[in-house]
């Protein structure tokens, strides 16, 4: 991907995504952390667009930036007496070490591997191909996914019901 627009968009979206993900860690107010998380989701959706994955980008905005973040905000608002300081537990040191090691390992392997074969062009259309794949090759997982969603919905309602 050589054209200037894509390169500039990639770097801007990377800075937005990683910066807001870092501010999820840093800010000392849980509500601000959730708002940063939403910005990070939107940044990832933009990165999907630079990868010519338009359908997944729209699904990301609808489901992550729309539904899941509203769900997280609701859970936060419905637990008013708990601490809102976005604090860490005693595991902060080990977690920091483990996260650093994970990033170094994956990024090191990704940088050391020769990806010169991986030069396929962008997709022309994705929604059509995804629809065909979901209804032919992956029709069984597709149906099971609807059952999973139904079970999760019923389970969540049963769990929070007052009685």
């Amino acid at each position, binding site marked *: *991907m050589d054209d200037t627009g*894509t*390169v500039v968009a*990639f770097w801007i979206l990377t800075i937005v*995504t990683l910066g807001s*993900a870092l501010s*999820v860690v840093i800010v000392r107010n*849980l509500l601000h952390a*959730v708002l940063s998380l939403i910005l*990070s989701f939107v940044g*990832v959706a933009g*990165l*999907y667009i*630079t*990868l*010519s*994955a338009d*359908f*997944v980008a729209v*699904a990301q905005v609808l*489901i*992550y930036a729309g539904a*899941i973040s509203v*769900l*997280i905000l609701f*859970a936060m608002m419905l*637990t008013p007496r*708990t601490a*809102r300081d976005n*604090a860490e*537990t*005693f*595991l902060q040191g*080990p*977690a920091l070490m*483990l*996260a650093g090691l*994970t*990033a170094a390992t*994956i*990024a090191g392997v*990704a*940088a050391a591997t020769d*990806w010169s074969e*991986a030069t*396929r062009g962008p*997709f022309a259309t*994705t929604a059509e191909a*995804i629809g065909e*794949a979901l209804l032919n*090759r*992956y029709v069984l997982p597709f149906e099971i*996914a609807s059952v999973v*969603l139904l*079970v*999760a*919905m019923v389970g*969540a309602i049963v*769990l*929070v019901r007052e009685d």
Partner: protein
Amino acid sequence: MSVELTHYLIVGAILFSIGLYVALAKRNVVGILMGIELMFNAVNLTFIAFSRFVESPQPINGHVFVIFIITVAAAEAAVALALAMVVYRNRSTIDIDQINLLRW
């Protein structure tokens, strides 16, 4: 200067490790869930990047995987937040260092 697969993989690695740190170290259950969602996003980004760059007979499979991951993540978020609500109703807190019922 061009953008290659390696760039996306490194962004995914950094995003994953930020999510890992948030999920392991945050005290609030909602914070932990936010870390898990960040990790899901990093994995999805990696899937989409491989799907875009690597030659394969059915390159759209990466997208289908991501659709399924997003579906399951939505179900997981709903159930996890319902669990947090139940814990809050019983213990009046969702700080994990005060939820120590299983400690012996």
